[in-house]
C-alpha cells in the first residue's frame, strides 16, 4: 500500500504527550515487574504431574490440546472468523487465481519445484514432532500455507482451484472436526473436551491434522481475499 497522499504523523504536541504517556506506562509496568517474585513455579508441577494422562509427551502440546483444549478450539475459531471476515469483503465465494501474467522463469520454476515438496515434508515433520517436542499444528500449518502461497505467487495454480465448497470445507475442517469429536464424545457421556485415555493420542493427532490443513488454507485465504484488484464490484446495498 503506497502512501499516495502522505499525511504527516501527529504533531509535536501529540508526540510529546505520547512520549510522556509511554514513559509513564513503562514506569508503571516496570514497578509491577520489579515487584514480581524472581523465583516461582507457576503451574509447571501441576502439568508435569498429570502429563502422563494427556496422551502426549511434550508439555506445551499437552496443555494446548488436552488440558486447555478449550482455548485451542476457540482459537481455531478466531482464525476461521478472520478468514471468513476477509471472505466477506469479497462478493465472489471463490478466491481468484493469480493473474497468469508472468511466467515463472527457469530459476524460480526450479526453486519452486524443489521447495514445495520440502515444505510439505517439513510441515508433516513439524506436526509429528509436536507430540514430544516444539512443533505442532500451527507451525505445520504455517509452513504448508507458505508453500501454497509460494505456488500461487510464482504463477502456479493453488488455492484458486478450490471450489467454493472445498474452500469452505477446508477453512472449517479444523474447528468443525475438533468440535465434532468433542461433541460426539460429549453426547456419549464423556465430559466435554475429555478424551478417553486410550484414544487421547490418536484424537490429538487427528485434530492436529485437521487444524494444520485449516491453518494453511486460512493463511492463504487471508492473503488472497483482500486483493484490491477484483474489488470492482465495490460497495453494494445502496445508501446505508
Amino acid at each position, binding site marked *: 500500500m503506497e502512501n499516495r497522499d502522505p499525511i504527516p504523523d501527529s504533531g509535536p504536541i501529540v508526540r510529546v504527550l505520547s512520549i510522556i504517556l509511554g514513559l509513564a506506562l513503562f514506569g508503571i509496568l516496570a514497578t*509491577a*515487574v520489579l515487584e514480581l517474585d524472581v523465583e516461582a513455579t507457576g503451574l509447571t508441577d501441576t502439568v508435569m504431574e*498429570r502429563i502422563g494422562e494427556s496422551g502426549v509427551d511434550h508439555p506445551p502440546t499437552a496443555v494446548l490440546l488436552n488440558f486447555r*483444549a478449550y*482455548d485451542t478450539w476457540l482459537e481455531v475459531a478466531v482464525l476461521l472468523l478472520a478468514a*471468513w471476515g476477509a471472505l466477506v469483503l469479497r462478493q465472489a465465494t471463490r478466491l481468484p487465481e493469480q493473474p497468469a501474467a508472468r511466467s515463472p522463469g527457469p530459476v524460480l520454476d526450479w526453486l519452486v519445484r524443489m521447495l514445495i515438496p520440502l515444505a510439505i515434508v517439513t510441515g508433516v515433520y513439524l506436526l509429528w514432532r509436536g507430540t514430544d517436542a516444539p512443533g505442532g499444528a500451527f507451525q505445520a500449518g504455517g509452513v504448508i500455507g507458505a508453500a501454497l502461497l509460494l505456488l500461487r505467487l510464482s504463477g502456479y495454480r493453488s488455492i484458486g482451484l478450490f471450489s467454493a465448497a472445498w474452500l469452505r470445507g477446508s477453512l472449517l475442517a479444523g474447528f468443525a472436526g475438533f468440535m465434532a469429536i468433542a461433541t460426539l464424545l460429549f453426547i456419549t457421556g464423556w465430559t466435554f473436551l475429555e478424551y478417553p485415555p486410550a484414544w487421547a493420542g490418536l484424537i490429538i493427532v487427528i485434530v492436529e491434522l485437521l487444524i494444520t490443513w485449516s491453518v494453511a488454507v486460512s493463511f492463504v485465504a487471508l492473503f488472497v481475499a483482500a486483493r484490491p484488484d477484483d474489488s470492482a464490484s465495490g*460497495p453494494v*446495498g445502496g445508501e*446505508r
Partner: protein
Amino acid sequence: MSLAGIWVILIPLICGLAAFAVGGRSARVIGLIGAGLTFLLSGLLVLHVWQSGVWIYQLGGWDVPLGISLRADGLSAFLIGMTGAVGLGISLYAVRYFEDEDEALTPDPSPDPSAPLRTGAGRGGTEVWLPGTSYWPLWMLLWASLNVLFLSNDIFNLYVGLELLTLASVALIILQREQAAIVAGLRYLLAAFLGSMAYLLGVALIYADAGVLDLGLLADAELTGTATQVAGGLMAVGLLLKAALFPLHFWLPAAHSSAPAPVSAALSALVVKGAFYLLIRLWFEVFESAGTVSVEQMIGALGAVAIVVGSFQAIRQARLKLMIAYSTVAQVGYLFIMIPLAGSFGDPEASWRFEAWTGGLYHALSHGFAKASMFLAAGVLLSALGHDRVWHLAGSASRFPVIYLSFGIAGMSLMGLPPSAGFVGKWLMLRSAVESGQWWWVVILLVGGLLTAGYVAIVLSQAIQHDVEEHTEPHPVPKLMTVMVFALAAMSLLLGLRAAEPLELLEIGAPFQTLMSMVED
C-alpha cells in the same frame, strides 16, 4: 438440564458452521433453528441456575488450575438469558430484513429457471456472497462467543473469547462492504485489538504474580500487590476501550451506526455488555482488594461525562442511527456509575453496594432490550423511507405507529421512567447513591434521564409532526420486523413490572454474598 451450559455454546457454533457450510438460502433456516434452540437452552440454563445455584463445569475433566472451568452464577445466567431473548428477537427480525436485502442484490432472474439462483450459487461459475447468507453464520458465532464470555471462568480463555467476539463483530459490520462500514470496522478492530493487548498484558502479569488463571482461585487469593494493581489497571483500560466508556468511545458511533440494523442492534445491545460484564466480574471478584475508592470514583466520573457528552451528541445528530449509537455511549456511562456505587466507598459491608450492583445490571438488561428495539426500529424506517435523517421523518408516525410506539417505550426505558426495566435499574442505583451519601451521582443519574428524554422527544415530535411535504410511498416493510421491534420494546417495559425474580437471580453467587441478609427494606 445441567448441561445446558455446554449446549448453549455448542448449538450456536454447530448451527453457525452448518450455515456456513451449506450457504445460500438454507443458511437462514439453519440460523433460525439455531436461534430458537439457543434461546431455549439459555432459558434452561437460567432455570438451572435459578433452581440449583451456581453451576461449575470442569472442561475435559481437568480440575483447575490445570484445566479450564465454566461457571454460571446468577450474573452469567442473567446476561445469557438477556442475550437469548434479545438474540431471538434480532434473529426473527433478520430473517425478513436480509430477505429483502438479498432479493435486491440477487442478479436478474436467470433465463434458466432450474438454476438455483436464490441459493446464491452460480452463474458462469461465479457464486455470490449475499449479505444475508454471510449474516447467519457470523451472527451465530457472535452469539456463541457471547455465551463463551459469560460462562468462562479463566482469564486467558476470556481473552480468546473477547477476540472471538471482536472478530465476529467486525465481520458483521462490514457485511455490506460499504466504505463507511469498512472504515468503521477497521477502526473498531484496531481499538479492540489495542484493548485486547492491554488485557493480555494484564493476564500475563497476574499469572506471573499468582500462578493461576482461574477466576475463582484468583478471587480466593485476595491479591493486593502492585503487580495486581497494574494488571487490574491494564485489564480495566482494555475492557473500557471495548466497552466504549468515554473517552474511549471514539470508535463506537461509526461502527454501530454503519452496520446493518440487526447487527447494530446486537452490537449495542449485547456486545458492549460483554466487555462490561467481564470488567465488573474482574473488578468485584479479583481486584476488589486491590482497588481504591479514588479509581472507582474516577471511572464513575468518566461514566458521568459519557452520559452528558453522549446525550448531547445524540441530540445533535442528524441521522437516527448515529443518534442511537451516541445514546449507547451515554447509556454505557450509566453502567459505569455502578462501579463507584458498588465499590468500596464508605462502609464496605453496606447494603447499598448490592443495590448498586443489581441496579447497574438491571440497567444493562433494560438497555439490552430497549436499544435492540431502537436500532431495529431505525432499520425499519431506513428500509421503508430509504433514509434515516431525523429532520425528514415528519408525519411518519401515522404510517409507522407501532414503530414509533416501540421507540417511545424503549426511550422510556432508557430515560428510566416507570413502568419500565430502566426505572428499576435507576431506582436501585439512585437508592444506593442516596444511601451511601454520594449525592453527585444522584444528580448525574437524574440529569441523564432528562437528557435522554431530549433526544427521544426530538425523534417522536418530528415523527408526530403534521406532514407538510409530499412523500413518496414508503417501501413496504414485512410485518414480522415491526412485530419484533415492538416485542423487544415491550420486554423492556414488562421487565419493569416485575423485577423481583430477575433481581433474585442476580443474588445467586453474587460477589456481595455477605450483604444479602442486610438488604432488609
